[in-house]
């Protein structure tokens, strides 16, 4: 390297001054417009004719404090269901996606089953699956069949979400360029080993954001199991709301769900940023 030192030119200094001025102006505009927007929103809501009643039934500090422990208690049931269902869904989804990549004729029945499964369970509303599993399975009176509502809820959610997650995995597997598969096969790797060491590790990174999106959705849908008698956050709120005619507990439940999903969203961003860095951007 030669000994050249760089002194910023007058033109460059002027350019940087101008950029600072523009940045400051942008910041001011953003702040003012946000304040105005929130102000108008608050005025519209509090100025509405029904506001005093809404304030009492939805924003009662007293009701909030009273219901909070019960709602929080129920919320742990939601978290438990979520934590058990999530790994099960990943396993089911991955297996179904992998079965669909098998080409050998001997696997035809499995492949057909996988296609039928995704078609059916993506088509039926989650709430219906929960009701069918929750009331149908115990009615069979089978020996060893689960009767516990939480277990039944987990099974129903796994069936429903497994179909979605299988499709996410399949899209991820398909997104790995065929040349990667050709390179692996040409090294003598079998279909299974090509999947395991070459395709899935690359597919996995691409499906993490859509998977987390599905899991945020799953966190909310755990409240659907209240329909088969699980007393979780929504049910607790409902119990309180119907006995005291005050809807504030619903707000408490909503707050808990938001508090759970926001870290998940930030975690997704973090993972995306990390894979960007790893790719050397």
């Amino acid at each position, binding site marked *: 390297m030669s000994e050249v030192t760089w002194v910023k030119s007058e033109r460059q200094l002027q350019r940087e001054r101008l950029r600072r001025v523009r940045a400051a102006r942008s910041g001011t505009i953003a702040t003012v417009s946000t304040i105005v927007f929130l102000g108008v929103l608050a005025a519209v809501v509090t100025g509405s004719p029904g506001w005093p009643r809404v304030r009492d039934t939805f924003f009662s500090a007293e009701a909030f404090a009273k219901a909070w422990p019960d709602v929080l208690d129920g919320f742990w049931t939601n978290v438990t269901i979520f934590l058990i269902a999530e790994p099960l869904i990943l396993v089911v989804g991955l297996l179904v996606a992998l079965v669909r990549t098998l080409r050998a004729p001997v696997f035809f029945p499995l492949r057909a089953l996988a296609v039928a499964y995704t078609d059916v369970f993506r088509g039926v509303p989650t709430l219906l699956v929960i009701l069918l599993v929750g009331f149908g399975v115990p009615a069979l009176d089978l020996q060893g069949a689960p009767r516990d509502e939480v277990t039944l809820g987990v099974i129903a959610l796994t069936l429903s979400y497994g179909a979605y997650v299988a499709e996410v995995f399949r899209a991820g597997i398909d997104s790995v360029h065929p*040349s*990667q598969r*050709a*390179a*692996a*096969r*040409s*090294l*003598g*790797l*079998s279909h299974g*080993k090509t999947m395991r*060491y*070459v395709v899935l*590790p*690359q597919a996995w*990174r691409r499906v993490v954001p859509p998977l987390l999106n599905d899991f945020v959705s799953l966190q909310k849908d755990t409240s659907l199991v209240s329909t088969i008698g699980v007393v979780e956050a929504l049910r607790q709120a409902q119990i309180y709301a119907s006995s005291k005619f005050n809807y504030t507990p619903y707000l408490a439940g909503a707050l808990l769900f938001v508090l759970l999903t926001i870290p998940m969203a930030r975690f997704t961003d973090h993972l995306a940023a990390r894979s960007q860095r*790893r*790719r*050397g951007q």
Partner: protein
Amino acid sequence: MKHDRGEGPGGPVLAVEGLWKSYHGAPVLRGIDLSVEAHEVVCLIGASGSGKSTLLRCVNLLETVDDGTIHLDGVEITDVRADPDDVRKRMGIVFQAFNLFPHMTVLDNITLAPRKVHGVARPEAEERARELLDRFGLADKAGAYPDRLSGGQQQRVAIIRALAVRPRLMLLDEVTSALDPELVTEVLGVIRELKAGGMTMILTTHEMGFCREIADTVCFLDGGVLLERGTPEEIFTDPREPRTREFLKSVLDARRI
């Protein structure tokens, strides 16, 4: 200690007979016959679309053939009962687009097949990989990910990856076509080194000067037919076929511009 190449019985390493292949009804290979002896370097030349790459892909069983046979060390690999994975274990192929695995370090790229296909223990596989990296001037890149390497470095790693399983035969498909001119030299150097080590190779290339230098046999393909076969001297100084002459003239003219 074994060499880079696996050892086999006498006779040609590879024998291709009456090979036909078409895509969607358009014939790409029309009755190719080709035989490659041990330690022979065969260079396939011809215009784009003449079938060079398809021939290599057929030999590696990445394509199913429409007709004809391919024998590797006297065993028919186009037999429908042959296990493609087993065949590919004995061959290395390097592609124009490198096709390194982006989620693995250079070292993992190279040791994947030895460890997972050939059952070599990790320390042993890594030792051999480091040896090869060292030999081809990439010792400091063992821990790097492919996207941190230049095109020439990536292609050298791809060659080493194919070499790590001690193949009986190496197939090199336009390995310098995707590279900047100043990076071509380093890859050609690797191929020279392979020839010096006695590797049996089939390569397709547009680098006529290199082809002339490295090949024992040059084959000219035209429209899916192996039109002419001879030593580099014969093909480059006194080609029999008018089509060969025409092709070489157009390539040389292009170089002059």
